[in-house]
């Protein structure tokens, strides 16, 4: 349970790096096989080799565009997550505010962001800010919902403890509730990490001046599916990287959860 004596180095490496690599290799093989076995045209589904080739046609350009998308994503993710967590804190502080605004937020959140993208451009302009706002809009809600859930899941034991110490609301919050909520907040962050990338690309599809979204637009205009897939693959890599960055942060910040639960 709490003590894993068998977790030797090589076994662990295999588990944490070998298996994921194997999974990726298998998926690539399957993809390749499908394209060959069914003789699928690159236009419908390019083979991995076509995608690699497309990437190698413009490695510098693609990397640069990926970097731009990543910037937008990262900035928006940070702002959106902090905002989501902050509003959750506000709601935790005042259930009156929560009751008044949560239905509105749930409603607004259901408005398709893709439909809002043109409005954002009109309101904010043809610039990076509009793109970041899009990312923020997408990241906000999952972090809000998960933080709220986490903050209200503190066991009564611990609540009574901090209450009995006459801890102020803020002290209870900082010393008990936030830490207790962390595992759940990370659920929201994991979901938001993927949505952040999606938000960045939606914004780039609407105003395709830069980023991998722009690459997708121009490649779809020229029916260059392999290039579009190269961009999508870069986005996927980015998504996995961001996700596992969040997972790594979780391991560092909340090691104790794995000790008290399984």
């Amino acid at each position, binding site marked *: 349970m709490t003590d894993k004596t068998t977790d030797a180095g090589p076994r662990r490496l295999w588990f944490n790096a070998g298996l994921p690599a194997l999974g990726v290799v298998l998926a690539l093989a399957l993809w390749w096989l499908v394209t060959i076995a069914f003789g699928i045209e690159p236009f419908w589904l390019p083979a991995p080799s076509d995608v690699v080739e497309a990437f190698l046609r413009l490695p510098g350009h693609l990397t640069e565009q990926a970097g731009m998308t990543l910037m937008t994503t990262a900035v928006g993710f940070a702002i959106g997550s902090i905002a989501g967590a902050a509003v959750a804190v506000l709601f935790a502080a005042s259930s009156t505010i929560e009751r008044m605004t949560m239905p509105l937020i749930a409603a607004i959140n259901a408005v398709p962001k893709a439909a809002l993208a043109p409005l954002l451009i009109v309101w904010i302009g043809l610039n990076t800010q509009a793109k970041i706002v899009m990312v923020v809009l997408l990241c906000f809600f999952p972090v809000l919902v998960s933080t709220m859930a986490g903050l209200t899941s503190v066991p009564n034991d611990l609540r*009574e403890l901090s*209450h009995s110490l006459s801890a102020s609301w803020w*002290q209870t919050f900082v*010393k008990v509730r936030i*830490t207790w909520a962390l595992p759940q907040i990370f659920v929201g962050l994991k979901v938001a990490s993927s949505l952040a990338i999606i938000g960045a690309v939606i914004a780039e599809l609407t105003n395709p001046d830069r980023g991998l979204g722009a690459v997708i637009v121009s490649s779809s205009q020229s029916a260059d599916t392999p290039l579009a897939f190269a961009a999508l693959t870069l986005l996927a890599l980015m998504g996995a990287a961001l996700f596992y960055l969040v997972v790594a942060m979780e391991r560092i910040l909340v090691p104790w959860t794995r000790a008290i639960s399984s």
Partner: protein
Amino acid sequence: MIKIAGLSRTFQGKSGTVDALHNIDLDVGNGEFLAVIGRSGCGKSTLLRIVAGLIPPSRGEVLVAGDPVTRPRRDVAMVFQRPALLPWRSVRENVMLPVEIFRWPRAKHRDHAQRLLEMTGLEGFADRLPHELSGGMQQRVSLCRALIQRPKVLLMDEPFSALDALTREELAVELQRIHIQLGTTVIFVTHSIQEAVLLADRVAVLSARPGRVRELVDIDIPRPRSFGHNAHLEEVAAASAELHQLLLGEHLPETPAAT
């Protein structure tokens, strides 16, 4: 120091209400050590929770140092029945929690924390997380956390229940020392009649569902007391027998306790 008047408490549940406490009147003098005994489920923890200001009474009121209790006070410390440790804080940091919350200077209290850990035999475990401790060790940590507050009033809910006889005796001695030195008023819930006789000035025996004060027994044995020294063997035996009888007496409905 503590005045409990006409205190009742009921709990509403889906399957009916429970009368946990009914019309409790109790005065605890300044510096007095009151033990509370009673059958499991008779409302001892509920009583402590109300005195601590953690839950409101359904009727009646509680005064601590003359002020009605509406919420927890910083000069009242509580040892919970369950350890309630923060799982992400080391033993030392758990003990230091009240210091942080009271915004006391950490440096000044670090030594105190260390002494308390030594007193409870936990000095080797200061840097471990709670889940690495045994049940009794966790209970001792929560005891240290209450003692570091040097409270005027100490509310203790079966603080020694998970401890072996020896540790229990050692800590009972320490607790007496603290009680005498600092003049702390203590309400001490226990299931051990021996412990009650050893530690208390008075013992409140509660009857069960609804919890009422069945009897208040004075323990007139000179302090310091200990299990070891058999100076007052007879008084101890007599008091123990009386308490035992009172607890047993519950079987006979409505019979006033007679020693």
